[in-house]
Each structure stands twice: as C-alpha cells, then as structure tokens.
C-alpha cells in the first residue's frame, strides 16, 4: 500500500515537473560537476517547435526567473476563459525609472492560429536577457528603453488551436460564444474531427463521372477542378465536419467567430461593415486588458504586433479613406520598413489597405492613429522561404525603392499563380519533410454524406515554418524589434550657456538634441494633439523668470517665440524632431543656482544646473 502511495506521489511530481521540463535540465544533469561551455545559455530553450499557452507562459517565467535584475512579469487581466495575459517588462531599474524611459510594446498571436508571434516574443525576451552582458548594443538599448512583451494577445485562441482539431487557418477567433448563424444558438455547429486523428482535413466524395473535381494524375494528393462540360469523379465537401445542430448546414457556427484585431478604437466599424468587430470598441476582454495597460503607459512609442503570414512589414492606414500619414512620420516608417526588408529576406514593406486588404479597427492602426506611436505588424513567414528563392517563382519585386520610386512607395509583389503554392507545399512535403505534413486521402463514414474521403495538410504547415526553420524566423523578427527600439528618442543636453546682461539680468540658453530616428512626438500626435506636449522648465529659488521662449534660429539666439504667460514653463507640442534639436532662451533676474529640465512622455527626462 505504501509503495502504491509513494509511486502515486512520484507520478504527481513527475507530471508537475513535466510542465517546466526543458532540455536544459537534462543537460545540467549530464554535465554535473563540470563547468558549462563558454557559450551555454542561462536558459536553454528548444527553438525548433511551437509551444502551447501553458508551455509558453512557463518559458517566459523561466526567462524572468533567470534574469531578475532585468525582467518582471505581471498579468494584465484574464481572457474570456480565465487565462492570465502575461506581460513581461524588460528594463534596467539601475538606469532610471521605467515610466520615464521610452518603450516598445511587443505582442503576438492575436489570431489564435497565428502562433509563431508568441515564440518570437519569448525569443526576444530570451535574446535580450541572454546577451545583455556580452553585446554592448543590446545592453545600451535595454539600459535606456523599456520592452513590454505580451506573447499572446489571445491565449484562449492559442490554446484552442493547439489542443483542438484545427487547420493552419482556423481558428483566428477568441472563445466567447457567438451566434454566427443568427439562429439563437451559440457555437452549436463547429467542425468535427470525424476520423479522430487530431487533424481537421478536407472532405471529398467519390461520385464517378458525376463530379467537378478529379485527382491530379501527377500527384494523387492534389485535386484539380474540371470545367464543364467535362466531368470529374469527385465533389469537394469543405472542411471536416457534420451538421451538429440538425439545421441542414455544416460547420456554420463554430467556437467563437470574431476577430480580436478588429475591436480597436481607431476607425472601428460595426460588424455589418467589418466582420468580427465586436459590439463596440474594446468590447472583448483581451483588447480591453491591453488597452488599459497601454493607456496607462504613455511612454510606449513603438509597437510590434506579430501575425502570420506572407512575409510583410505592415504599416497603416487600414482603409483608403483614412488620410495618408504625415510626411515626417512616413520617413520613420520607411526607415523601419526598408531596413526591415534587409533583416527579413522574403519580407516586403507594405501599406495595409493598399497592399493587403482593408482593416477597420486594427490594433496597429490604433497604436499609430489613436496613440501616435510608431506601430508595425510583421506578417511572419513566407512560403517563399521553403526554397529560399521567391524570385524564381514569382519574379522580382516591382515598384518601390528597388525601382527608383520614393521610399514611401513600398514595392508590390506579383500575386502567386493559382496553384503554385499548393504544388510547392506538396513537393516540399515529399522532398524535405519526408511526407510528414500531409495526411493522405482515406475513407470514413459521414453521418450525413455516407462514405466520404478525408485528406489534406496538417495543422502545423503552411502558415508556420517547419521546425528546422523556426529559429531563424524568430531571430530575424526579434532583431527587427531591437532595431525598432533603437530608434526610440534619446534626448541629451547639447548646450547650456549663460550670458550676463547686466543689472542682475542673465540670458540662459539651453539646447536639447534627439540622438535617434523617432521624434519625441510623432507628427500625427502633434497634429491631432494626442498625449501631453513635451515641457521645458527653468527654476531657481533666487531667480525670477522675466521672459522665455523657443528659439527659431539656431545661430541667432535672440530670435525666439516668446511665451506670453509662464515663461519658465515652455510647452513643446511638436517635441524634438528626428535627429533634431530645440533651443530655449530665458531672461532671468537674480542669482544662484538655476535648474533647467526637459520632460517628455516618450523620452527620458534630462536636466542641467547652471550657476548665475
């Protein structure tokens, strides 16, 4: 009896450990007593597979536990099904207060099936922390900025994609029950794994001489449409499933059935204009939790929201009627997008509504159009990467910078020929994946259709890379985020000088300079008066500020735009431009120490003291 008890406890412990076990534990056991290799990581993570929500959360926590000086983790709220939404904050408290440093928001996986953004987030956290001590560039950016990292915007959707039968494309949604077919029942007829193999496949029925499809004579996996008057031997019956609710339709109301990336405030449109938008902006728990966090962190000045797929670096606008962005901001986006193309081969810098499709109420649209931060989405992974050569298949990119057009005109790419993707994927499956990604056609009995056949690609193909290509994808995307963060503004004092004017009067000149690409206030934020303006102040117990203003000529210091009231407190709605500078000049009466300070939402505070 005792023995049974002990083994039961052991089994329990083992199952607990199972959740956190990774190769590093195995390595540690084998190398006990020996010094680790010089290039060993503090946290070893296998970057050749994808992780479900629980596993991914554990990986994030492991990174945090191993690097407590730089990382903290908090739940920003719960999902519809009650999962925690974990955000990791990476920053160095020794170099200043978190709220005073500019920040990058990074997330992934808003669509349940678009999983690899989650791994990219954890990879970024892992890469920054593991390299903090040995890579000066990493250290510099981690020391002066903040990263807020949410691996999954949609943990319910992620969990459902991993643990329920799904396809590469299903399901994008969260899990709040939704009456998609308007019959008063909720989620009552989703897809079904008829053959119980854990995959959601395609149904076909053999109807010799009476169908409109035939089997490709060169590849038995592939179906070819037959144009009338010719006939084929098969009809295609759609996604694997049965009529669960007996209403005559199949798979018409599955779990969820909305789009968390259409629920954001900027250009939000109701469901009848934008499918999946939800009842009103931020009506779903997950976007609301994120919005509460983001609105509470006005230091966020850059966004990266990872999606899959297609190999794109996307900026807004999301709809043609939304005005094109101000020129000064486009130049920031162009720098990010065009350098991103170099970091991310096979990716193209694009405008959402023009080069992809119309999106109302998207997250990055809100990030830029609603908050004035530089917001970008990477559509991770392109199946051009399967053969490491897209030009052979589709021809070169046309238009855009490559063709001599202005950099703000991103290149467009010719659409793929109709069937090429499928054929390429099939060939790749056969030659490189040893046939492991395709389920061959096989017979099953269907309660409504009788004998049918099922076949198709497995879930983890098509929109995600094969295991052996994951790490490269993660690294290139994470390094792009690091590049985004490096562009965050950093304001330094360039000059502080005092001119003696006589009669106890002094002129104090103060110049601050922005060392980086992103201005302290985006042009759209300045135009639309979003957020708080930057502030230049001067104070001292023994002085009276007689006049003050912002300089309008760099070399003629007396040319200033005088403040009519409160000259010691100059508001700067336009902020400090990209690589630019702002000069203030004050006339003060008195003596002693004077304190001058620059304060901004998106840049660290800088100050100088001068003696009159």
């Amino acid at each position, binding site marked *: 009896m005792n023995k049974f008890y002990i083994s039961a406890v052991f089994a329990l412990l083992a199952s607990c450990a199972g959740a956190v076990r990774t190769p590093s534990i195995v390595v540690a056991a084998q190398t006990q007593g020996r010094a680790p290799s010089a290039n060993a990581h503090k946290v070893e993570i296998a970057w050749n597979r994808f992780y479900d929500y629980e596993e991914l959360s554990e990986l994030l926590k492991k990174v945090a536990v191993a690097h407590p000086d730089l990382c903290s983790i908090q739940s920003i709220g719960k999902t519809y099904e009650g999962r925690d939404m974990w955000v990791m904050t990476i920053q160095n408290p020794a170099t200043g207060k978190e709220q005073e440093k500019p920040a990058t928001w990074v997330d992934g996986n808003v669509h349940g099936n678009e999983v690899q953004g989650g791994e990219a987030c954890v990879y970024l956290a892992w890469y920054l922390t593991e390299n903090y001590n040995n890579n000066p560039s990493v250290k510099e950016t981690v020391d002066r900025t903040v990263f807020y990292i949410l691996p999954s915007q949609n943990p319910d959707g992620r969990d459902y994609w991993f643990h329920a039968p799904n396809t590469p494309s299903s399901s*994008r949604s969260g899990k709040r029950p939704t009456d998609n077919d308007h019959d008063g029942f909720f989620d009552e007829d989703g897809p079904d794994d008829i053959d119980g193999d854990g995959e959601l496949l395609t149904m076909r029925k053999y109807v010799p001489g009476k169908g409109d499809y035939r089997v490709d004579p060169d590849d038995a996996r592939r179906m070819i449409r037959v144009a009338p008057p010719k006939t084929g031997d098969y009809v295609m019956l759609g996604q694997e499933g049965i009529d669960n609710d007996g209403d005559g339709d199949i*798979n018409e109301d599955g779990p969820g059935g909305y789009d968390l990336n259409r629920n954001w405030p900027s250009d939000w449109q109701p469901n009848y204009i934008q499918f999946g938008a939800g009842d009103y902006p931020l009506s779903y728990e997950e976007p609301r939790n994120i919005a509460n966090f983001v609105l509470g962190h006005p230091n966020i000045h850059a966004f990266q929201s990872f999606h899959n797929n297609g190999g794109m670096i996307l900026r807004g606008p999301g709809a043609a009627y939304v005005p094109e962005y101000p020129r000064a901001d486009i130049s920031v986006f162009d720098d990010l997008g065009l350098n991103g193309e170099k970091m991310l081969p096979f990716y193209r810098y694009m405008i959402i509504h023009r080069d992809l499709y119309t999106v109302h109420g998207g997250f990055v649209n809100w990030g830029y159009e609603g908050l004035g931060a530089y917001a970008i989405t990477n559509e991770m992974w392109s199946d051009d990467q399967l053969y490491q050569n897209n030009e052979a298949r589709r021809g070169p990119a046309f238009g855009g910078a490559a063709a001599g057009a202005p950099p703000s005109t991103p290149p467009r790419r010719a659409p793929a020929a109709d069937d090429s993707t499928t054929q390429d994927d099939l060939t790749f499956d056969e030659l490189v994946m040893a046939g492991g990604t395709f389920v061959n056609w096989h017979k099953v009995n269907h309660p409504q259709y009788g004998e049918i056949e099922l076949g198709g690609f497995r879930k983890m193909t098509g929109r995600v890379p094969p295991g052996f290509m994951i790490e490269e994808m993660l690294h290139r995307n994470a390094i792009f985020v690091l590049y985004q963060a490096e562009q965050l503004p950093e304001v330094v004092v360039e000059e502080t000088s005092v001119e003696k004017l006589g009669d106890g009067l002094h002129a104090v000149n103060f110049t601050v300079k922005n060392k980086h690409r992103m201005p302290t206030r985006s042009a759209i934020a300045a135009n639309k008066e979003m957020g708080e303006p930057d502030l230049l102040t001067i104070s001292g117990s023994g002085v009276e500020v007689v006049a003050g203003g912002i300089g309008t000529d760099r070399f003629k210091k007396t040319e200033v735009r005088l403040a009519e009231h409160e000259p010691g407190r100059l508001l700067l709605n336009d902020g400090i431009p990209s690589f630019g500078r702002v000069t203030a000049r004050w006339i003060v009466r008195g003596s002693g120490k004077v304190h001058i300070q620059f304060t901004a939402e998106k840049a660290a505070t800088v100050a100088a003291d001068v003696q009159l």
Partner: protein
Amino acid sequence: MPAPLLSIALFALQSGGANYHNPAAVEQTLRDAVAKHGNRAKIDSIGKTLAGDSIWCVTLTEGDERQKSAVLVLGGANGAHQVGVEAALANVTQILERADADPAVAQLLKEHCFYMIPLLNPEGAKFMFANPKMEHPANARPVDDDRDRRTDEDPPDDANGDGWITMMRFPDPKGEYVIDAKDPRIVRKADSAKGERGTHKLVAEGVDDDHDGKWNEDGVGGVRIDRNFPYQWKEFDRATGSSAVSEPESRALADFLLNHTNIAAVVVYGLHDNVRKAPKTEAGPADDATDTPAPAAGGGGRGGRGGRAGGGGGAAPTSILKDDGSLYERAAKIYKEKVGAEGDVEDVPSDGAIHQWAYFHRGLPAFAVRVWTPPSGTRAASGPASKPSGEGESQSRPTRGPRRETTTDKPEDEDRSKSERARLEWNDKTLNGDGFVQWKAAENPELKAIGAEIGGWKPGVLFNPPAGDLAEITKKHTDFLLAIAPECYPKVVIASAKFTENKNGLATFKASIRNDGKAPALSAMARRAGTTRPVRVRLTVDGGQIVAGRPQYLVSNLDPQDAPVEWTWVVQGKPGSKVKLEVNYPFGPDSVFTGEIQ
C-alpha cells in the same frame, strides 16, 4: 481660487427648484416606487461611475421579463438636462400608479416590459445641486482640457458669490463679442460682414486660477456620455473620450442593451429630438433584403481562410432607412397628439449620440425627445444660444457649460439675437426675471482689474422648465410613452399548422407564421446590421425523419401587413411519432405546435 467644493447631499430638493431631484433623491424615489409596487417593479444597478455611484435601472413588468418585448427609456446622460431625468422618473411612478387603476396599462405590463434608466450620468447631474450650481454636461473623469500637463487646474469660480456659475464679459481688443445696443444684457458675436469689430471677451465666470492667460479653461474633467457612442464618434475631441464607449456609464448602458435582446425600441430624453418632426429617410440596401440575412462570413471554424479579409464593407447609412420611416412618423404623430410641444429643436450635432448608436449600429428604433425648450421667437433656434464657457485654445471644445450646439459657426445672426430676445422676454414676464443674473461689475480684485462684469443665464434655465411646470410636462410624456410602446412591438404567431396528408407513416405537414404586432419582426436597419435575431422556425420529428424540406428556416422579413409565410414538409415515421414545430424570436414567447404521424 481652488475648485469649489461640491456639497451635494445637503441640496436634495433645493437648488434645482422645488421638484427637481438630485441623484440621491432619484434613487430614493425609485426605491419607494419599487417598494410600493413590488409586483410590477424591481430595481438593479447596471454599473457604477468612476466615483463609484450606481446607475439604477427599474424594470417595469409583471412577473418574468424574459421573452417580453421591451422599451428602454433613458434620461440624464447630459448633466445639464435635468428635465429628462424628471420625465423618466415620473414615467416610473406614473406608469405604476396607472397600472393599479387602468386595466389597459396593467395588461401592457403583463405582456411587455419597460427598462427605465432615469439618470445615466449621476456625476454630471450633481453639479446642478452643488454650491455653486453649474452646468456640467459630462461625467467627472479628469481631463487635461488645455493640454498643459496639469489637470483640472482652472475651473470656473463663483467670483461674485451668488451660488451660480454664470458668465463673465470684459473689454478686450481681441474679443469676438459685442454688447447688443438694443438690450445690453445680450452679448453677441460681432458681425464682421457688417464691418463690426469685437470689443469683449465672453467666458465662464471665474478667475484665471493658473495664471496662464486663459479663463476657466480646465475645470473638472469630463467626457460627454451623450457623445461617447460608436456611431459617428468624434475622435480627438477632449469631451468625447479616449474611444467610443470609453466611460463606465456608456459601457454599463451598452452592455445592458446588448444583454437584453428583448429590447425592441429605445427612448432617450436628452438634447436631441426626432419626435417633434419625423426624421428624413433614405432608401437603403436593406429595403431590398432577401428573406435571410447573409450569415456572417468566416464564423469560427468555418472552412477555408475563415473570413480572413472579413467585412461586409460599405458604409453605415446616415438617415433612417425608408422602411423604418413609418414608425418614426407614427411616433411624431403620437408626440404631437400627447405632448404637442411647439417649435423645432435646434439642430444639435449628434456625433456619438446614444439614439444614433441604437438605431444605426444596433438596428433598434430610437426616439430622441428633448422634452422641453424655452420660447424661441423663431422657428429654428430654441436651445441655449452661445454659452462659451472655458476659454480654450480652441473654441470648438469648451468644457464647461453646454457646448455651443449649433451646426454653423456663423456669427450671431438675426435669428439668434431674436431668439435671445424672446427668451429674455420670457425671463422677464414668465420667470419674473429670475432666470437671468443682471450683468454687474466684478468685485474680485483680479477681475475688477480687467473690467469684468458677471451675469447671464442661471445654470440650467435654458434646458429645464420652471419646476412648477414639471407635473404637466412629465404627465404628457408618460402618455406619449404608453402610446408609442405598443407601436414598437412585433408579435409573431403560428398562423396555421396542419397535416394535409397523414397515413401509413408518411405525412405532409404545412405551417405558416404571421406577424400580429404593429412593428416588423426586424427593423430594416436590424436586417442591414444583422443585429436583431431573425424568427427561427424549426421542425423536429421524434421517432421519425424529415424526408423533404429543411429542418430550420430563419425569417427576417415579416411585417404586420405581410401575408403569412408558409412551408411544407414531408415527414416519415412510425404512427404515433411526434412532429413538433417551434417558432422562436426575441420579442415574445415561443409558439409551438405538436402533432402525430398516423
């Protein structure tokens, strides 16, 4: 001067006039009514404001409210519009009293339901009961109105200590206003077309607390609940919130409406009006809608790319759809009959308005009712004229006092001056001069130094009738509500159900449904928006099967005057098998027919 303290509780029934109710009195009145009429009323909190005040909803119906069509009635979204609160509050008590005496009203509460939310914005309403008393249309969320990195640092002040925040005028060469030569009480915009040059500034009463050269430009916060809803929501306007439905009051209301799918229509007592005159209509695609709305593309788990690109596209309509026009016309007719209010309500911008959201996004007929307007002297202008409050960087976003609710930025034209004169005449004759504070030089040293005079309309006077008129006005609105409600309800029933053939285990079954109510099963806008659920007709055979016909039909187009919609099924089963037809829709009980296969 610091912001005036709000001493609310003490002013229960005072400052607002004898019968205006402050938030505490509103709650008490509702509780008393519910206690007295427990068989037909209950009270619930639908949410809380930022300050933690509950927003109360009284449900008026006898017994269980589920599957009873309902009208949602709202008041007090705008803190200055007290008469709307009074109307909704009186509706509650008067409907309950009448139900005790009038069998028709009792029957209405048996079959149908009213959801009554008299005070949606209690934070804003409190300002009318504070000392000093002031108009505060919004809630009390702190907002840095003048964007100087300080929040709520320069509110209006009661500089003359009379207990009201009124207006202040002072000579200023940059001023846009002049004092009217005929009646020096009137301060109007200079008419530059006639070569007139402004001589005065006109701002809300108070000192420049933060010494930034602007008067009262950043008072106690505020997001306008009546401008915080998604249809035509205006972004980057500090009074409209960080997003549509950003405020707890708006969220509470939106969630309540979405969770009560039995709501068939909405009545909003507020600044807008579409019942004195029926709104114009437009022909929309919904007028040609087929029987069943297109199912939402790409529902979770649907095949292929799952609605990747999504979206029905297009744009939301901007006028009431033609097929919904007749209900609005009936409402206007009933309003004229029951209330008979004179004059048009000025054209108040309706960006983010509640009734607009209810109709254009949710497909619910929504009646906006101004309840009362002061005499105008002209047809077009009857509301408060210019009442700029805070002096901001932009006059388009004053934060104190009612916004200048006009559609044009034209200088004071003849009409406006005329209506201001008419109102002053009304003040002098009807109110005995009690609605207007005579302009008087300020004594506060800072204001004296600039030659300021304090005066103008007392808070709320141009929005709300004298308290003595409330009894009659609110009774008329109860009459209106009781008359319009039945017009808003569909009533779907089984018109016929019978076996035409039935022997040897094979039967032909025919059934039809009909709308016996006064409103369509779904409004044209609901069909367009795909919001209201269609009528579901479902046939099941216990111990048998349908051999011809679909098991389920969804019907979204069923108007009262339409002929019955009919279906035929062939069913097979052992003799004695049960055939069951169920008709289900959001606005009434299920209809069921059962029969047996012979």
